[in-house]
């Protein structure tokens, strides 16, 4: 809409903002209803299916035993340059798993054995699900994503 000022011959154009605001309001209402505020993710578990051939060379693996006392026992197998298992542990801190020390220990292990990708988590009764996730997080942060969960043995 062009309006002419009576005193001057300069045309002035007006922009009707009301429909534009209507459109924006509709967009905002739609997006507010469809926006995902909590982003869910997942941790994949690699469970063993069947047994591998006896002649195949087993890849380096680490078994992580989470104890209710907070101690974490690490047992590494088939490491290059080691015929026997390598056992290590992370002592508990305040009756809980010391994830800071555990992460630092895993940094050393990962730096020493970069081909170590296979992880077997063996939590026991009394271990919280959150601790399992945090332990998996430590390995995932170091690109050790082949994590398997071992059920509690029924004795």
């Amino acid at each position: 809409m062009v309006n002419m000022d009576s005193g001057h011959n300069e045309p002035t154009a007006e922009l009707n903002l009301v429909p534009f605001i209507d459109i924006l309001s509709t967009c905002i209402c739609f997006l507010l209803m469809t926006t995902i505020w909590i982003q869910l993710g997942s941790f994949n578990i690699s469970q063993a299916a069947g047994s591998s051939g006896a002649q195949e060379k087993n890849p380096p693996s680490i078994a992580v035993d989470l104890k209710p006392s907070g101690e974490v026992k690490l047992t590494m197998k088939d490491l290059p340059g080691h015929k026997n298992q390598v056992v290590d542990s992370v002592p508990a801190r305040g009756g809980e798993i010391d994830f800071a020390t555990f992460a630092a220990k895993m940094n050393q292990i990962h730096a020493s054995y970069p081909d170590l990708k296979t992880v077997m988590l063996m939590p026991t009764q009394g271990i919280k699900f959150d601790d399992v996730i945090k332990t998996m997080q430590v390995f995932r942060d170091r690109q050790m994503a082949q994590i398997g969960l071992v059920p509690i043995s029924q004795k």
Partner: protein
Amino acid sequence: MRSNTWLQKQMTRSPLASQGVLRPKGGKVNRTLVASLMLTSLVDAFSILVIFLLMNASSSTESVEIKNPNGIPLATNSDALKNGVVLNIENDKYMVGDRAVKLEELDTVLAQEKLKIPGDQAQVPLVIKASKQVDYKELSPILIVASQAKFEQYKLVVIDQVAH
């Protein structure tokens, strides 16, 4: 401004201009002050809000309905949550959908739910949702039962945080 708009009738004359001695603008002094609505700022705010919501919108085409996400463990660098059979552990019960299932019946129920999902059955994951305080002794039987129900993929639900 001499344009013929609806605001013209409501627009007040400048108080200073009305007090001019030589040539007061406007014959009658109108003491009524009416505030005009500044739409520009409102449009700016709406535009920023729309852009923010568009950036925040998820581009994932698959969705998994998870009720009550409170208490789910937090994690970073997690994988995308695929559509699958959702098993919820809450209050010492195993919930598949809205019904509680006993451990003895869980393998049958999981196998039935798996068949309902179209596509390659080998790629249908078992999505396990549990709160932080759930003991591992409740999760452990699921791993055995799920293998009996021929599940090959397992996913633990976490709330994805942006890594700092």
